């Protein structure tokens, strides 16, 4: 289930990216998305990844991935050196998400940031009805081992972008297999029914 969900998200991200562009995938994991982008869309894609095992897996697939921590090592990429910088469901795991976000926008002409939505109805009901920290497909951890330090909702991130004058070109919500566009008018509802939010920003 988790895998299918991931692929759905990757598919949406891939659709947002034009062919032949230059892309940096921050926290690229095992390189699934990178491989897809380079093969299907002829995208010149690089990755940054923390886990040694994942990095080696990527390199073995011929992907150019740098082992490093996005929190401290995004500074090495020059301004506007990529068309797009992708950050998939990791923003909430950083000590300083805003600093990371600023780097993404500095390095890329645009950025695609996806977040697991803490405003999703299952998350809300879990806390409301059972009084337990929420566990869902996109938030599978327990309270004591979660890497997610700064959980937020789609609405929270939306407000942050407004506050920081970040231009939101496209916002996509995913609910199971359904995809919907999010805008100022429907955000309250979508914030309730989307498990993951994808923001194309610049």
């Amino acid at each position, binding site marked *: 289930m988790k895998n299918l969900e991931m692929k759905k998200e990757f598919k949406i991200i891939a659709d947002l990216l034009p062919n032949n562009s230059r892309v940096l995938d921050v926290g690229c994991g095992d390189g699934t998305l990178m491989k897809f982008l380079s093969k299907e869309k002829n995208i010149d894609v*690089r990755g940054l990844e923390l886990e040694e095992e994942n*990095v080696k897996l*990527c390199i073995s697939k*011929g992907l150019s991935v740098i082992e490093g921590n996005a929190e401290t090592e995004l500074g*090495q990429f020059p301004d506007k050196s990529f068309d797009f910088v992708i950050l998939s469901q990791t923003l909430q795991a950083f000590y300083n998400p805003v600093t990371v976000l600023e780097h993404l926008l500095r390095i890329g002409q645009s950025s695609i940031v996806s977040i697991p939505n803490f405003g999703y109805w299952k998350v809300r009901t879990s806390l409301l009805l059972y009084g337990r920290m929420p566990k869902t497909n996109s938030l599978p951890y327990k309270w004591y081992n979660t890497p997610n330090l700064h959980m937020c909702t789609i609405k929270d991130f939306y407000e942050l972008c407004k506050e920081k004058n970040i231009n939101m070109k496209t916002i996509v919500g995913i609910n199971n297999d359904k995809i919907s566009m999010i805008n100022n008018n429907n955000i309250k509802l979508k914030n309730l029914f989307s498990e993951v939010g994808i923001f194309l920003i610049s």
Partner: protein
Amino acid sequence: MNYKTENIKNLIVKKPLKLECGQIIKDYPLAYETYGKLSKNKDNCILVFHALTGDQFASGINPITKREGWWNNAVGPDKAIDTNKYFVICANVLGGCMGTFGPKSIDEETNEPYGLNFPVITIKDIVKAQEALLDYFQIKKLLCALGGSMGGMQLLQFCASFPDRTFSAVPIACSSSHSAQNIALNELARQAIMADPKWQKGDYLKNNDHPQSGLAVARMAGHISYLSESGLQEKFGRKLQEKADYEFSFNADFQVESYLRHQGYSFVDRFDANSYLYITRAMDYFDLSKQYKNGLTEAFKDQKTKFLVLSFSSDWLYPTKHSKDIVIALNATGANVAFSEIKTDKGHDSFLVNESKFLTTIKGFIDTSHEEFRNEKRI
């Protein structure tokens, strides 16, 4: 160290080479070895650069020393650098002592070995000399070039000097510039050699002599720097050498002492002391950023080469920081670069030993590069 030269392939380089020190050399021998077969369209050629004490015999059994080739763990049939698929070239460096022009070579003017009359050479000179080998095999572009330690420095220089001559490059456990600590350790080694009375200001060969003690100490110092503290501790700890208790003497009581002595004295049979001086000097002079006005970033300008930079977590001679600096400079130019720090306790020497994480990583990288290179050639 006398050996039969019939097992050594030699290219006499006719093209004059102006060394960085100003001298010009020509018609000099460049000793090399090859493994595997060059494919028809020459898309499977890999150049390997050896480190300080290496030579051209990377794979199999070294026909001169009868010992295992220095990179036999990585190069050979069905190995990470698979000689069933790839054509591997390795040359003995300029200043070396395995058949290439070096301080041991005979000066035709005096009919005696050059000794200290040999010109001081640099990594750039070493690399330029090796370009002749690619011309000889008529290889416009290599599939891949690899090198660890000083081999990595040669590779960085090669990529900067000849940006179009390799499709991919793997600099391993190296640095773009020798640090104060690196220079200090090399100076320690040189001083050990020069303090040996048998060194005779470099003229020992004229008297059929060799500063074995000095060279052995130099090698011992080097060897310590190639291993990590935890690696040494795990291997030897405080174990005694074939004895129940201390001898209360200066014999090799500890296993680690015995090991070092063995490393030192088995080395002197196969290496020339003056070569050690010249090659360590070349390493110390290496500072790629100094060659370019705008530093390292300019050195890697317009790189089309696909890089894989590798370091080892327990390497304190060329720590990960050195590799990261290379990655940062490559990134700044928008070059295609991957980087990984291999977690191991085997120290700087990790690239020479059978370290599976390292070997599988380079294998995957080379094999995928091969596919990409063939596609590029087809287009």
